[in-house]
């Protein structure tokens, strides 16, 4: 079995999310259907800037938050 086919599990917005091993943040965004333009990405409490998303790899147990703006006063 090739390493790429192995799956890991991350914590995404408080829920478990399976993900192919060796995925970058940009891969995760594609999986959840976000173009990434209006989403902030926080991994293990660190903000990951847009230019780092294609190179920042995710590992089993990483805690990822995807946040966006909603209506508020």
């Amino acid at each position: 079995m090739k390493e790429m086919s192995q799956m890991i599990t991350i914590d995404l917005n408080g829920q478990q999310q399976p993900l192919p091993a060796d995925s970058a943040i940009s891969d995760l965004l594609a999986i959840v259907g976000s173009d990434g333009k209006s989403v902030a990405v926080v991994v293990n409490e660190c903000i990951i800037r847009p230019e780092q998303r294609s190179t920042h790899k995710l590992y089993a147990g990483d805690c990822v938050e995807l946040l966006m703006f909603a209506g508020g006063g």
Partner: protein
Amino acid sequence: MDSLQIGSYYFSSRLILGTGKFSNSTVMLDAVRASGAQLVTVALRRFNREQAEDDLFGPLSEIEGVTLMPNTSGASTAAEAVRAAHIARELSGSPFIKVEIHPNPQHLMPDPIETFEAARILVQDGFLVMPYIAADPVLAKRLEEIGCASVMPLGSAIGSGQGLATSEMLNIIIRESGIPVIVDAGLRSPSEAAHAMEMGCEAVLVNSAIAVAGDPPAMAEAFAEGVKAGRKAFRAGLMQRSGSAIATSPLTFLGS
């Protein structure tokens, strides 16, 4: 030009619009345009697939002259608010942050201690900090002293529509403040917004009263007019109240 100045930013509109509670984003965007607001608040929430198309950042950014003022709603501690502020700045690029820390959903009263601590940190982190606070003159002064760009005392509880229940305290805050005082929360009608401006507030922040109106864009326009009228009246100088009648016409011509 009579502009609202916050930090080194100038705004011709003194109506700040909240974007919560609208029936849908089309109505909200129409209300933003109708209000002429140049500062518009937004909140952070977690992304989910079902609501991926509800993004507000794109459409709001396309309205000319609009600057986002993210809030830290959902935070119940200073640490959470600081974290939310940094994420919001990353997302919006806006220097403004409305610090909003209300741990109790029953009354939504702001926590003064956590708010002060968050404001202190965020000022150091280079934000233009606009804390939502109870109408407390002492706290307002302390927030000014640590470098906040404005203070935003409540008129009454969030979403209550009880108007300027805190007007006596607001008068003290306005009299003593060296930074803009913006009444935030509780306003129900354009006349109340006008009243706040006549008292000397630099701006008002309105959300529910516009969002839940029968015709939100029309109400947004009405609030904009109320704010303008109130500001004009404040600058023109209101007459002093008198305990007795003072005639405007001669009283002696016919009878004497």
